[in-house]
């Protein structure tokens, strides 16, 4: 019995060596690890559209068929191969996976992450394992304001959550004046993103429309509960006409079905801060006249934007996946574009040689690059956090196009809805949003 432990250790050492040999093989093509939700409640709303966005943009990059300025083949000449893996399982699982990708499979970079929880968990570890990590969807401002104050390897190529809710407040104050007479109320899932969204929106409204009062009690149903009978009754009883909600995915679809059955959307105007992916899929069934946000020029708001890259993306995406590209498709593709921009610029900056990771990082830090439907400015947190313009509008179903569209669109400048560099989001909101340049 004594040597049972000894034998187990020998077994482990052999398993480890086998794994090491396997990774040495393919050195030529770049390996991009792409964490996205392949299972669970977030897969249909965010996970799969994001995967499709990366597949499409990489096909274009590897074949060199993207319009200028991204028409060169590959990243700094080398083709790139996506390695999709499931973002399910919570922070612990994703930290272990990140370490496996960095140390076992030795990937060149990570482009992805949807859930704020995962971003909060992996931020520090990415710096520790020195792996270029481009966060593409998660919105918690805490990544650079609390967790990694001096980032080197971690970037985020999408605006963080604050811009989303500030934009909503601007739009509501300007376009929903009469609905706001009786104030506004919140319906957010009881987890970090829901709590942060309500806090930011409430603070922004306090600054932009101080005379409009929120309800005394907000609704915070459990995440993924799927049963909203009581919440709908509470909302119907409340006098407030405007409801702020950060619902998304399955919960939003369930809420819409149960709400429509009770005529809720005829009496209230909803601000769905991240409702675009669901709105697009429900199309005709999505109640018209509601506010839908995408945290930047993506998905439904990018349909009208006439740039060669956007037209290419819209046409090809609809052909292959038989549905319009939504917010996560744009955001993940934008992450890959940021990598290509950095690799190409780094190669050019040091005489056409294939760049080292540090050179790529230097090229991306503080850069401004044209994305699919707008420009991205890496303006905050030492050039690691992007800011983009934000667009808001009311939904309406377009009969001939057979697709949901937005009308009364208001474009809010990047500098208007995001805090200036060096100022954290909550203090900025509480301090009256000083330095915001709004049109």
């Amino acid at each position: 019995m004594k040597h049972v432990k000894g034998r187990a250790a020998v077994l482990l050492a052999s398993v480890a060596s086998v794994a090491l040999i396997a990774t040495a093989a393919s050195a030529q093509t770049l390996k991009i690890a792409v964490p996205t939700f392949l299972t669970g409640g977030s897969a249909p709303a965010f996970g799969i559209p994001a995967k499709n966005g990366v597949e499409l943009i990489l096909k274009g990059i590897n074949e060199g068929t993207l319009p200028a300025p991204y028409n060169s083949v590959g990243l700094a000449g080398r083709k790139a191969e996506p390695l999709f893996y499931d973002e399910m399982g919570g922070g612990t699982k994703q930290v272990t996976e990140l370490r496996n990708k960095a140390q076992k499979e030795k990937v060149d970079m990570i482009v992805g992450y949807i859930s704020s929880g995962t971003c909060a968990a992996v931020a520090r570890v990415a710096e520790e394992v020195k792996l270029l990590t481009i966060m593409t969807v998660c919105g918690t401002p805490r990544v650079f304001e609390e967790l990694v104050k001096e980032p080197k390897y971690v970037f985020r190529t999408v605006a963080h959550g604050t811009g989303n809710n500030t934009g909503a407040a601007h739009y509501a104050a300007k376009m929903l004046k009469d609905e706001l007479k009786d104030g506004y109320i919140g319906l957010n899932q009881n987890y970090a993103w829901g709590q942060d969204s309500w806090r930011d929106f409430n603070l922004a409204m306090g600054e932009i429309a101080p005379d409009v009062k929120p309800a005394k009690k907000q609704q915070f149903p459990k995440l993924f509960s799927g049963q909203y009978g009581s919440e709908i009754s509470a909302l119907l009883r409340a006098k407030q006409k405007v409801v702020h909600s950060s619902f998304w995915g399955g919960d939003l679809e369930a809420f819409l079905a149960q709400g429509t059955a009770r005529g809720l959307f005829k009496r209230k105007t909803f601000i769905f801060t991240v409702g675009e992916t669901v709105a697009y899929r429900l199309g005709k069934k999505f109640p018209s006249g509601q506010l839908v946000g995408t945290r930047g020029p993506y998905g439904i708001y990018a349909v009208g934007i006439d740039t060669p890259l956007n037209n290419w993306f819209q046409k090809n995406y609809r052909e292959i996946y038989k549905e319009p590209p939504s917010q996560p498709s744009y955001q993940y593709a934008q992450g890959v574009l940021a990598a290509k921009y950095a690799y190409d610029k780094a190669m050019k900056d040091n005489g056409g040689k294939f760049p080292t990771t540090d050179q790529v990082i230097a090229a991306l830090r503080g850069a401004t690059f044209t994305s699919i439907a707008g420009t991205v400015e890496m303006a905050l947190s030492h050039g690691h956090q992007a800011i983009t313009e934000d667009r808001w509008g009311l939904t309406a179903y377009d009969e001939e196009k057979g697709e949901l569209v937005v009308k009364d669109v208001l474009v809010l400048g990047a500098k208007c809805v995001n805090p200036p560099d060096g100022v954290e989001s909550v203090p900025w909101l509480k301090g009256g949003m000083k330095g915001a340049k709004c049109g």
Partner: protein
Amino acid sequence: MTKYMDRTTWALTIGLVLLIVVNFFVPEWFRSILLLSLARGSVALGLLVLWRCGLISFGHALFYGFGAYTVALIVKYLGITDAFFTIACGVVVAGGLAWMLGFLLRRYRGIFFALLNLAFSMILYGVLAKLESLGSTDGISLERTTFLWYAPEGAANKFALFIFAAILTWGVALAVHHYLRSTLGYMTTAVRENEIRLEFLGYSAERAIHVKYTISGLVGGFGGAIAAMTIGHVDPDSMAYWPISGDFVFIAILSGTGNVGAPFIGALIYELIRTYAFDQFPEIWQLIMGGTLLLIVMFLPNGLWSLVDRWSKRRTGRDRLEAEREKA
């Protein structure tokens, strides 16, 4: 019986030496797996102590979560990152909670004990997910661990943490082993077999269970503290949600109740299966885990260690036969 005693102590010490030696060669990602196995193994050890007297807890993520969150909160709000201090607090807080809940839980047996633990762990999950001061569902990240004056950087940090955790886990395993061999520890089977007789021997079965529950809470908190330092982040979904408790019971069943070293081997095997299943079959990794657990429950209900026991019994059985033959 006495000869058996120090064989386990020897096995644990050799195991420790092996772990420290392996620590020098093993790649970084594998060291994290070993560290997590030590953490999860400790919680499974806590379950083993309870399981021997017929009690299974479906909510042990409660103590795992408490241990981990205590460490995280100390680092965040007190700014103390010293491993010795934080781990001690984690263990004491989790143990204290177990001691308090013990007054209530010691009266329950079987499925009621299991479900009451589940209920408490879900209440903790609700609190952690709700309170923004506890980081809500995003969780809390930890600064780099320091060891008294020594504050290693990057990979060296994990290297030092591994040695620190291996030695402490060795100590915990020995302490639990000693406890199980003590009179109080031996009462586990007595409690399961016949509580009335125990009362009439002058000791209360409920107090015995209370002591066991407190120990399992202490060890659970220890596992949680190690996990928090290894991962560097705590969040409700990976620390207090009910499938996490399911994982611990999985490991406990996988390893069996034969020996205090078994849960750590069980935890390592569990982690290897999960990592392998997650890499090779991303779509059906849960199916593989479920399938493995089914096989174990059906064909090996008292865990891998029962193989070792059966193998060693056959050997001791043969010794006894030879002894008789010589005598005759």
